[in-house]
């Protein structure tokens, strides 16, 4: 059974079709990247996959459940199995790093203080931020915020993690650290990962499969080598400016 199956997905806003007949399958444990130009519909697709937006038509199966037809309360049951890392981290700025990480845990499970402490220190150690429990988001750099965002997303031990532009706006070293974290997380937890990005070196380094969106349609869906070798003009044009900066696995 696939972790995510998207069938004939259409998303429209008044007078504009953002996504047009999207079909996509993500197998369990894979890292699948969705790339494309700004405005191609990548983040919209991510929000649809996590139930933050409702599709105009089509099916989005998480496991065997079509989330397009669920109520908000039913969706919450599914969301407990999903983690979402936001482009700008979206940490709660009135809460400390500690409270951000346990936010979902304390609201959905009954844990002792010692158990919560253990979850926080474990998650922070994984993202290389041990000892930053008492800091507030305003005291963290952009890269640190993204790492805390990842720690928060992993705190509920999700089976699927979605990453929205995980390396955008970061320096190359921090971007590399985030790439390593995504791969290490997959190795350690066997979690399914969906990454939305336009940063080609990262995409080709971490992905098992790559799908490219252009004007709301998927123009290619294949392994990094297949995408790299594609003769599709739109794909060629997208990859051309950064040829040499990445290597297909």
């Amino acid at each position, binding site marked *: 059974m696939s972790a995510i199956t998207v069938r004939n997905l259409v998303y429209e806003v008044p007078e504009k079709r953002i996504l047009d007949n999207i079909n996509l399958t993500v197998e369990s444990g894979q890292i699948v990247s969705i790339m494309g130009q700004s405005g191609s519909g990548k983040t919209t697709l991510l*929000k649809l996959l*996590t*139930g*933050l937006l409702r599709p105009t038509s089509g099916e989005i199966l998480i496991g065997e459940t079509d989330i397009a037809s669920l109520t*908000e309360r039913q*969706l*919450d*049951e599914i*969301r*407990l199995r*999903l*983690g*979402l890392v*936001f*482009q*700008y981290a*979206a*940490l*709660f*700025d009135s809460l400390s790093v500690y409270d951000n990480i346990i*936010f*979902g845990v304390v*609201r*959905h499970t009954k844990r002792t203080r010692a158990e919560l402490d253990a979850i926080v220190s474990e998650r922070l150690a994984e993202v290389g931020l041990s000892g930053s429990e008492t800091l507030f988001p305003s005291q963290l750099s952009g890269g640190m915020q993204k790492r805390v965002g990842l720690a928060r997303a992993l705190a*509920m031990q999700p089976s699927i993690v979605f990453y929205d532009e995980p390396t955008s706006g970061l320096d190359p070293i921090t971007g590399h650290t985030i790439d390593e974290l995504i791969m290490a997380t997959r190795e350690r937890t066997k979690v399914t990962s969906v990454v939305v990005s336009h940063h080609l070196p990262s995409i080709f380094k971490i992905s098992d499969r790559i799908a490219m969106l252009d004007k709301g349609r998927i123009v290619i869906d294949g392994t990094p080598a297949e995408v790299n070798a594609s003769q599709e003009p739109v794909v060629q044009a997208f990859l051309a400016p950064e040829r040499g900066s990445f290597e297909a696995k």
Partner: protein
Amino acid sequence: MSDALTKKAAEPKSIEELPITPVKRTGAGIITLWRSLLVFLGETASLTGRTISEVARGGMAVGDLVRQMALLGADSIWVVLVVTTATGIVFAVYTATLATSIGFSKFVGGTLAFSFLNELGPLLGGVAFAARAGAAIAAEIGTMVVTEQVDALRAMAVSPVRYLVAPRVVACIIMLPLLIVFADVSGLIGSYYAAGANGVAHQDFVDSVLTFVRVSDLTSGLIKAVVFGFIIGIVACQQGLRTTGGATGVGRSTTSSVVLCVLLIFVSDIFLAEMLMAKPGR
């Protein structure tokens, strides 16, 4: 060629192709205003229903409510007290000057207390609370929307209505009446001294208050405060949640929240005054 041109000129034009005239502009403005009003009413009614449902199900965390009560109360009390005390002083100066000149100084205390408990305290306190607490709520939730913090809540299966809206609305409903009690007291103290300074004997002021004012005047004001608190809480949350467009959008939501709250406070005050004055005992 000329036939084709003549034929084209004779074809009826769509409304968008017609020249923009003052009539068309006014019509479009009315339609937009009417549409905005319907959207506002629909969204506010829906949010009210969901908030009541969350509170009734016991979904709201007591800690979140207590934190909001402390924040909203502490943030607003000085604004409310300054506004009502200053109004009490000014109102007393005018009333005392007029009343003493025509020999009615024994009515000053009762008139001021009656006005304050029934109207000035809740109305001015409500407006000050809308400006301080309502604006803060709309700005905070609006910022959370544009920085995706509200999406983060939903992604973690936490209802924004349960976590953000319900505690703020209930805190406003509880805190505004409490603030209005302080506002009434501070306004009357200001009136007492200002009236005294303008020829009204302190004992006459107190006697007049005790003669003309009833407990029902205080409760009428507090009932108004509960309604105003609900209006401020729900409208500020609704405006915050519908924020779009970054920092400019947050500014727009904050401004429209204050404007809508003040307008709704004044409009609802008309109906509340009619209803509360019509009750038996007055």
